[in-house]
């Protein structure tokens, strides 16, 4: 066994039930399995078909977020689910959880929210755990030094039945981020800058560890934003070593260890760092101080530019031309000339309290432009409540935005919240794929501050002038 290990290797090694060989992958134990209504029905069917019990219902965290409506309601009894398919998924999730003895944070639960928001918020996400979910943005939980990755529905079935997964050990990629992020430049800009640099397949086959002083200076919400988008660089997972910021965040959360157990856990967590002299398969250096607010101009998250930089010109590449024509964007001009129809503030990338606060700082005392629709969708019911306690809902509503219930909403457009054909949205979510926010929708990914500034201007806009006063 290697004496110098990376953080990833430490977590991996602790969870190997059966080591890998040339002929067989490792069997890896899973500490936390988060499930939602969209990628689980077929997995529960598998258990039923094979007559298998659920091995560890106590290690499952279940909620509903993707197909669920976010329209403001007085009571969840009045909720109308858009579409028969979505309604069926929601009902089946309730039935499956009941049948297999899983506690469901469903409608009416004050703890319901987006899978990747509530895991950390409840303190279920902890350093050194292995965490999976049938959702690629499970990489979010890596912000706590957990090994967390998305799986398919067949694998969801494997974990339900055995609490284990078959896995080949991935390679490691160190992303070293030095320097200080400038004023008006946040974690979203940082991760978009990273993906722009290494490309949407730059991390394929690898687990990323984000390192360096720029990462250490980030709060937990910001670290989650960075790890969240690891998958957009093709990586399996993204990790950040836990430190005092992590422990402070977790302390006292309902599912975090309490009392003496906390002290024991803390000792263990403090060992979770990459040993001096341990080696990575690849490494990349980034200077955070050089970054501007970043926006995407094309149809994947690697097609990204600084807010006032011209859109590059690769017109010899047919896929590039196709992306620009879909987006109705011109090479050579900055994105700030593009007019905006919809602004979406939400998703597991940017729907936490600090994201809402950043956007509210820009919107405070201002109005969004005529003709722009802005949706603010908190990541969880708890965040919604915390924001209301701070009066943020009023800032948004007075600015002319819609204040919604928690859920995935327009990030994926499965619940009826869509941008509209041909319309352009500035979105704090993570994917600008063709049609991701509804058929024909054109998506510009941006930070909460940039999204808020764009709502005010009615064009893609630099947030920095709004922060000066």
């Amino acid at each position, binding site marked *: 066994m290697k004496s110098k290990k990376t953080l990833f290797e430490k977590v991996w090694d602790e969870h190997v039930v059966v080591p890998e060989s040339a002929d067989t992958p490792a069997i890896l134990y899973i500490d936390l399995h988060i499930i939602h209504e969209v990628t689980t029905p077929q997995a529960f069917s598998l258990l039923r078909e094979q007559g298998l019990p659920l091995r560890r219902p106590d290690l499952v965290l279940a909620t509903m977020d993707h197909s669920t409506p976010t329209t403001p309601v007085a009571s969840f009894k009045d909720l109308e689910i858009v579409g028969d398919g979505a309604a069926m998924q929601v009902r089946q999730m309730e039935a499956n959880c009941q049948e297999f003895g899983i506690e469901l944070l469903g409608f009416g639960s004050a703890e319901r929210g987006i899978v990747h928001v509530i895991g950390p918020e409840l303190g279920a996400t902890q350093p050194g755990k292995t965490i999976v979910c049938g959702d690629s943005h499970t990489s979010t939980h890596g912000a706590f030094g957990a090994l967390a990755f998305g799986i*398919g529905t067949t694998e969801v079935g494997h974990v339900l039945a055995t609490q284990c997964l078959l896995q080949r050990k991935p390679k490691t990629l160190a992303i070293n981020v030095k320097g200080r992020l400038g004023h008006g430049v946040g974690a979203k800009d940082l991760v978009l800058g990273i993906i722009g640099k290494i490309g949407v397949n730059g991390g*394929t086959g690898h687990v990323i560890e984000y390192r360096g002083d720029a990462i250490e200076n980030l709060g937990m919400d910001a670290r989650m934003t960075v790890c969240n988008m690891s998958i957009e660089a093709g990586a399996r997972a993204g990790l950040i070593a836990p430190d005092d910021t992590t422990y402070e965040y977790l302390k006292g959360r309902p599912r975090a260890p309490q009392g003496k157990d906390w002290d024991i856990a803390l000792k263990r967590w403090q060992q979770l760092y990459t040993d001096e002299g341990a080696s990575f398969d690849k490494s990349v250096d980034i200077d955070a101080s050089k970054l501007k607010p970043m926006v995407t101009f094309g*149809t994947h998250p690697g097609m990204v530019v600084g807010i006032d930089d011209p859109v590059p010109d690769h017109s010899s590449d047919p896929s590039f031309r196709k992306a620009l024509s879909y987006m109705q964007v011109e090479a050579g001009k900055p994105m700030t000339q593009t007019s905006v129809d919809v602004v979406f503030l939400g998703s597991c990338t940017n729907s936490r309290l600090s994201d809402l606060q950043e956007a509210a700082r820009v919107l405070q005392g201002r109005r969004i432009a005529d003709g722009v629709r802005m949706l603010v969708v908190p990541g969880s019911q708890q965040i919604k409540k915390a924001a209301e306690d701070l009066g943020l809902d009023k800032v948004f509503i007075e600015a002319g935005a819609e204040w919604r219930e928690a859920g995935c909403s327009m990030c994926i457009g499965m619940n009826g919240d869509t941008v509209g054909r041909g319309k352009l949205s500035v979105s704090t979510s993570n994917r600008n794929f063709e049609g991701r926010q509804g058929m024909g929708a054109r998506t510009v990914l941006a930070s909460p501050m940039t999204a808020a500034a764009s709502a005010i201007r009615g064009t893609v806009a630099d947030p920095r002038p709004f922060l000066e006063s």
Partner: protein
Amino acid sequence: MQAVKIIRSRTVVMPTTDIDTDQIIPARFLTTTSREGLGQHLFNDLRRDSDGRDKPDFELNSPEAGDCQVLVAGNNFGCGSSREHAPWALLDYGLKAVISTEIADIFRNNALKNGFIPVVVDQKTHEHLLANPGIDVTIDIEQSTLSIADDLAVQFPIDSFSRFCLLNGIDQLGYIRQQSSAIEKFEESRPWKP
């Protein structure tokens, strides 16, 4: 899963790069609780116009594409969401393999578990395939080879365990369950409990 040994077919070429799983099957078709019938929505927004009519210039709509089982796609296929609905839709449509220079991790994993074969080839082979739509190919799982028009044969990487499962139609869950005593031992003996 049914055993898959050899796939012989003409190719259909879709040169677009970075085809993500949202394009393979748009999210609004994920509100299903079954794996069946997703083929009708495969590439929906690329394949059909906004009135639901087939776009004549989309490669899979050409008459020659009719019985092709092998898709040649541009660089980096299958990135994005972890939805297993993507390989389910491809298989349900009648496709059995995809060839590209790079295939995203989660998609590849999901594909292999369902008997859909991801074939990664080098740039030169890829260019040859892109330039010759409709060419005959043979994908031999046992040998891990791709033969093009019966002569050029190239190796492609496939994890030996996945190959074994494909050739024998083995369900991977059964394999994990055989290790249940190791799992129990692990749970009992680990120094901390989640």
